[in-house]
């Protein structure tokens, strides 16, 4: 047995290095590109890289909302930058209307903010209480991103209102807002409905419908200051 054990290393016993020859040389390990470093430490990358990476993630999710299909990208890598951006844009666009009288005017900036975030939180809680498997922030992310069609509709409405506020412009705005409301509801239910037990889907979809209906109403009834 001892023979077999020593046989693999038998050749080594012949190798010897005399002690007075210095061993020197270069050892080079091929490094990956600098990107591999970034996975472990993003502290050294330029700020532009950091911002662009987040922006790319946000933009990717916008595209997923535009073409809602059953992808898990929106759910897996949730972030709240997109919803914040959309919420602030929508609230800003809803300003500047009927500002001459405080108590009869449109929604204040804070009111829009509260309705959107508070509404999203309540819908998320509702879906979790009914036994949904989606996590809290994932649901907030989905609901926030699906406001995008309504924000686009708001921008379109403001442009249309520059041209006038007669019945024709109202008709155009009505069509645009209805289409984007339907799109928002459809997109968000495509993501949320899967996480609910089958006999409670309608109970979860109805609050989402109500939420986007109210936001659509705010967009449609925006009237510019005279």
């Amino acid at each position: 047995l001892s023979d077999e054990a020593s046989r693999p290393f038998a050749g080594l016993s012949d190798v010897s290095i005399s002690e007075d020859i210095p061993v020197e040389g270069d050892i080079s390990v091929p490094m990956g590109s600098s990107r591999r470093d970034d996975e472990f430490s993003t502290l050294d990358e330029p700020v532009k890289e950091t911002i662009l990476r987040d922006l790319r993630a946000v933009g990717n999710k916008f595209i997923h909302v535009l073409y809602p299909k059953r992808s898990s990208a929106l759910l897996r890598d949730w972030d709240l930058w997109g919803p914040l951006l959309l919420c602030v844009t929508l609230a800003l666009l809803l300003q500047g209307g009927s500002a001459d009288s405080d108590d009869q005017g449109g929604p204040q900036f804070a009111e829009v903010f509260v309705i959107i975030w508070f509404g999203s939180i309540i819908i998320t809680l509702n879906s979790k209480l009914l036994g949904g498997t989606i996590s809290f922030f994932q649901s907030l992310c989905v609901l926030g991103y699906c406001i995008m069609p309504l924000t686009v509709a708001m921008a379109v409405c403001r442009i249309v209102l520059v041209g006038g506020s007669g019945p024709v412009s109202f008709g155009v705005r009505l069509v645009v807002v209805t289409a984007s409301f339907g799109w928002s509801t459809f997109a968000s239910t495509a993501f949320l409905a899967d996480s609910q037990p089958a006999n409670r889907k309608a109970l979860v979809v109805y609050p989402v419908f109500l939420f986007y209906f109210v936001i659509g109403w705010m967009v449609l009834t925006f009237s510019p200051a005279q």
Partner: protein
Amino acid sequence: DSIFIDVLSAEFEEAAELLSVDPGASTLSMSASNTTTVAAGEGRGGGEEVKLDLSEDEEGQEESSELLGGQKAAGGFWTFEYYQSFFNVDTVQVLDRVKGSVMPLPGRNFIKHHLRSNPDLYGPFWICVTLVFSVAISGNLSVFLSQMGNPSFHYRPQFHRVTIAAVVIFLYAWLVPIGLWGFLTWRQGAERQIGGYSFLETVCVYGYSLFIYIPTSVLWIIPLEWVRWTLILIAMLISGSVLVLTFWPVVRDDTKVMAVATVAMIVVLHTLLAIGCKMYFFQIAVHSPTPAPTAPPAHITLATQPH
């Protein structure tokens, strides 16, 4: 008759299940028969006595459902599961409860027939939210429609009304049931186990009774006054009768004066809510305040005075 048998069999099943889980549990019985069964395991004799107990009128049903209602909540109030137990409803159940609130039939107690010791908070909460927005939006639309011919009218969304509607409706849907439940529990006093609904059941029936106001508020956009008054009367009738049919069996054991007073108070508060909403949100054209146009005529008359 068939409904009676259905309810009986359902209650029997639930009671038998409960007894089989905990055979040591003592069932509370009518004051008349103290000797009624303790455990279903006693065999034929026990089974018969349980049956006899349940074949009494609905007071027997109330106590077993009270027992069941008390054992439903899971965990402490700081856990998520505790609140999840209040949302343990399916779509068909919610729709059935909504239907029951719109079509009250005499003899069908909403709590006994539709809730069946599974009160939920989904219905009351979302019905209140929908009602808030439907009242505010319909009110806004009706003001707009009534002022359409008026050239000096400038459309305003009036979003502060949403806040006011929310406060009023949620206060009504929560404070009135709290008050009513507390009052009824106090009146029950020593006989707490017989009759009386749990707090959640009271909130639940109040929430579902508000459902009829949602289509009513949408139909109030029609600017004809007689249509509006007819609608509000029908809505109050339906909604009020759901509440009265639910609470009358509990209250009738009390003295006549208190019973009538309690029911009258329920009806009056409900009426106040409906009429208050109508007056505030659906102003008719004559009363809408426009102080600006009245100023110039005064100026003109003043200018012409010196002559």
